[in-house]
């Protein structure tokens, strides 16, 4: 096959790399609020995020590739969150855990930032106040599908380690039910009603 199609080998290799990445997510929990309790439950034996290869929290952003923003982000915290994101090596992904990290939630005031995506690009939004562990795992599986499809926001091509710019990342975030807040309206709802 490969002598007929010169892109075949790199494509298969990329698929293998994507497969390896999606089952070895090292998480960095940026836990600021009550959602952290639900994250602990997700980590625990009953729901067991280890089944998806993401059981190993690294408490250093330099060793992590999945930033989970868990809880309310205030304006004062925004530079800290941004700095932690910048410290993570590529490829990296971000999950907004709960409504506060996604949109600011029920806080609409002088101090709460309306969503972590104001300062960092977010791949998966998990709704809920707090979300059930099943929702979190659903969001994680949505992210894994995106990684396998090579649609994560800073997934560099093989041989190209440069991160994609912000402008390109903007259209990528997706909610765990498959809709996106930042896509144009006609693209928001998936045609078959499933996570893409």
């Amino acid at each position, binding site marked *: 096959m490969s002598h007929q199609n010169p892109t075949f080998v790199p494509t298969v290799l990329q698929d293998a790399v994507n497969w390896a990445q999606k089952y070895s997510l090292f998480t960095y929990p940026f836990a600021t609020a009550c959602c952290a309790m639900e994250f602990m439950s997700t980590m625990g034996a009953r729901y067991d995020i280890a089944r998806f290869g993401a059981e190993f929290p690294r408490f250093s952003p330099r060793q992590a590739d999945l930033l989970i923003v868990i809880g309310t982000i205030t*304006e*004062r915290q*925004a*530079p800290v969150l*941004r700095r932690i994101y910048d410290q993570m090596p590529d490829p990296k992904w971000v999950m907004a855990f709960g409504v506060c990290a996604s949109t600011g939630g029920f806080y609409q*005031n*002088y*101090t709460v*930032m*309306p969503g972590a*995506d*104001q*300062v*960092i*690009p977010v791949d998966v939004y998990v709704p809920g106040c707090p979300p059930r562990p099943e929702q979190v795992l659903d969001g994680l599986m949505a992210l894994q599908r995106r990684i396998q499809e090579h649609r994560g926001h800073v997934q560099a091509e093989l041989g190209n380690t440069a991160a994609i710019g*912000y*402008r390109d990342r*903007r259209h990528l975030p997706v909610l765990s039910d498959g809709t996106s807040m930042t896509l144009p309206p006609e693209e928001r709802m998936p045609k078959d009603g499933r996570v893409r």
Partner: protein
Amino acid sequence: MAQRVLDLLTERLPHAVLESGTYVGDEMALISRDHLLEVLALLRDDPELDFAMLSDLTVVDWLGQAPRFEVVYHLYSLRHKHRIRIKVGVDQEESECWVPSATGLWHAAAWAEREAWDLYGVRFKDHPDLRRILMYEEFVGHPLRKDYPQNARQPLIRRPDAPATDDQTTRLLANSHDRRVE
């Protein structure tokens, strides 16, 4: 039980107590600002009163009334198990918007006064370190004042492609009465 506290207070310092009363079981005394420290020192040091603990210090904004602000002290006596609430009226004029600091009497007042300054803009004279404690240094205004615009946002950073809120906030802040930049 704390009625006796009020009686003692009015007996010892009748010139300082402007008003006193009871509401749902809580005794309150309105004090003139000039005698505030005198009253607080008496409450703390008198063996019959013995308010060793400053449990809370906050501010109420009565927008449209004069005086506009009310600084509220909640005191508790660990020995006698009684409580009292002390109030002081403060004008909104910037030169007059202050009360003497209680940090000399209770160390607990230090952070509480910083919070009151941060969120309401009431200054505490002779506070050793009166800085913002919850909001960031770049923040303009005092967010718990009733005339702070509800929709104003003062972000420290934003993504380059996020919609800018700065113009809106500048406009909102310019229309409010509270536009001092500290």
